[in-house]
């Protein structure tokens, strides 16, 4: 199945259904305070386990980094 | 938001105890500052500051030079009509004063215009009393359309109007609005305006703001000095100017310092504003509002006017008739008040010349 993550197309294994949490684990990302936007909507961490990714979905995975002026 | 909110807030202030606490160190500190707060402004209006008039004058003169250069705008008032339905206790045109009222028709206006334009005057202030019946907006508009052929700059000093009415007059050619609150103290206001539309304090208070909203290039406000306690009145007028300046950057805000003058009737001032007090007010205005225009009329005597010029004045009137018309064919009519400086335009511009001022007859040219 094809999905777009941070602007790049990616082929992912669906298996028995791929939730956002599953995807993050496959990338070795700790949920921590990563921010996820799924098809343009910010999703709360509590919902990550319930959302199954589907064909052509887009994901933005964001992180807070150092910034200032 | 209206200036009334700010008025109500500061009106709670105990002015007397504030003034009692101000000492010379406070005044000196204010004089050392580059930019004054509202409290600093009030400090400059205090009795303690009256010992610092010379220092204030030096600064005011410098600031004025910095912001305006050595220019002085000369204008002339033309009364179109003296019909008035109000009863301002201090005014010769009050409905209570019985005299034969008159109003210029368009032919007469044109004659006046020719006579005035011949003097070289380009900036005309047109005035009427408050009578929507005798001097309706349509009449003002017709007059403006006619007068703008003779004068590139036209201002009005008429009864308060609605925004749309101001807009109508602006479209016809008006650029400036003069409207004095007369007295900011609401109690005294109600006392000296017992009846007629002018008794509506708020409607008048918001008129300059409506002028700004309508797009007036200049708005000129002031307190009629003598009606209320002068320190407080000057304070509120200054705050009002600042309020307009801050909110309407496109409008040039001016302050006038009219003092009560003798007139038909017998109203006596509530507080006496002597020459020193007048000077203190002018200087405090200038230091608080470096880029506001300050306006001086022929109500003041010639010699005093000459001395006041370098203290921050940017506009003066000349050779004023305060009766209806009066330029084409001077006659003994009823005046709104008596003027004190009766020098003609030529004399005034010569005097300005001698003092090193460049006389400006108009601010800009209408395009």
């Amino acid at each position, binding site marked *: 199945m094809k999905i777009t993550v941070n602007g790049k197309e990616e082929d992912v294994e669906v298996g028995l259904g791929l939730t956002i949490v599953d995807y993050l684990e496959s990338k070795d990302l700790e949920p921590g305070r990563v921010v996820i936007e799924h098809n343009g909507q910010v999703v709360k961490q509590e919902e990550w386990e319930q959302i199954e990714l589907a064909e052509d979905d887009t994901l933005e995975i964001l992180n807070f980094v*150092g910034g200032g002026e | 938001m209206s200036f009334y909110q700010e008025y109500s807030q500061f009106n709670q202030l105990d002015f007397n105890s504030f003034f009692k606490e101000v000492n010379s160190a406070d005044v000196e500190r204010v004089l*050392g500052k580059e930019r004054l707060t509202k409290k600093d402004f009030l400090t400059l209006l205090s009795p303690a500051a009256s010992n610092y008039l010379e220092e204030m004058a030096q600064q005011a003169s410098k600031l004025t030079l910095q912001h305006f250069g050595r220019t002085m705008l000369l204008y002339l008032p033309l009364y179109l009509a003296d019909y008035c339905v109000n009863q301002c206790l201090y005014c010769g045109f009050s409905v209570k004063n019985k005299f034969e009222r008159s109003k210029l028709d368009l032919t007469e206006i044109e004659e006046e215009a020719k006579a005035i334009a011949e003097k070289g005057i380009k900036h005309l202030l047109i005035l009427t009393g408050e009578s929507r019946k005798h001097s309706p907006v349509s009449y003002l508009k017709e007059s403006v359309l006619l007068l703008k052929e003779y004068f590139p700059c036209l201002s009005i000093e008429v009864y308060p109007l609605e925004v749309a009415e101001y807009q109508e007059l602006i479209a016809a050619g008006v650029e400036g609005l003069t409207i004095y609150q007369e007295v900011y103290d609401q109690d005294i206001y109600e006392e000296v305006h017992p009846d007629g539309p002018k008794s509506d304090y708020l409607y008048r208070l918001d008129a300059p703001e409506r002028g700004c909203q309508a797009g007036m290039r200049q708005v000129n406000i002031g307190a009629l000095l003598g009606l209320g306690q002068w320190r407080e009145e000057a304070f509120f007028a200054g705050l009002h100017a600042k309020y307009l300046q801050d909110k309407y950057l496109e409008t040039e805000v001016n302050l006038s310092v009219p003092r009560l003058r003798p007139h038909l009737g017998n109203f006596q001032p509530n507080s006496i504003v002597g020459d020193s007090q007048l000077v203190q007010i002018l200087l405090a205005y200038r230091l608080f509002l470096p880029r506001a225009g300050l306006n001086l009329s022929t109500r003041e005597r010639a010699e005093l006017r000459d001395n006041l010029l370098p*203290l921050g004045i940017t506009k003066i009137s000349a050779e004023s008739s305060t009766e209806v018309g009066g330029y084409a064919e001077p006659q003994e009519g009823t005046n709104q008040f008596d003027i004190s400086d009766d020098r003609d335009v030529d004399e005034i511009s010569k005097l300005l010349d001698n003092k090193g001022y460049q006389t400006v007859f108009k601010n800009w040219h209408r395009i």
Partner: protein
Amino acid sequence: MADRLLIGDKELDSRLFTGTGKFANQNLIPETIKAARSQVVTMALRRVNFDSPQQNVINYIPEDCVLLPNTSGARTAEEAVRIARIAEAAGCGNWVKIEVVSDNKYLLPDNQETIKATEILAKEGFVVLPYVSPDLMVAKRLEEVGAAAVMPLGAPIGSNRGLKTKEMVRILIEEIELPIVVDAGIGKPSQAAEAMEMGADAVLVNTAIATAKDPVVMGDAFAAAVEAGRKAYLAGTGAVKKYASASSPLTGFLKEDQG
């Protein structure tokens, strides 16, 4: 009476805002913020880089600080609004520093887009601190559309050049009722003190602290400078006799009157 800075719903004791960018070692961040006694700390939101996943910078910011996510990276109002909403959804609170930069050479803010974003976010209940070039009409518009403060730049971002825009910032301080937080360009504590003496309500300093040889000590130095500048402003710079006494008297005529 305590001299506190009121922004949005918060009362702050510290007038030094700091950032989390450009630190050689993120472990220095908590100690530096503490030394700077800063209560408002800014950070940015970026796409995760899967090849070298970074630590989440929020983990380094002391708990009691107000988080001020900025919208750096945004080139339009829309993008800034989106970043702000994401940051809020991520639990950063409702403060946001709007930063819209579409110019890649000088990195100067796009004031028009910033106003648009500020208006949208202020309506949604955000405490919006827009970063702008110091321009009076722009600041007035921001005031109208509901900004919580205005953050004019002191010099182009990251340039450490000091208060190059001093006269323009002074006009904002004089004319704008909202708190003015001088952002960007302040390279030395003396420049921070200068801004505060002039009447700025706060300053934001990041590069100068983060890139110092010893960020912790530099944070402390900035804190002291900001406090000194603030105190000087409150004390009212002394009565400098700016009036000349030599010129001819202007009010002599009054005395003649009385005599």
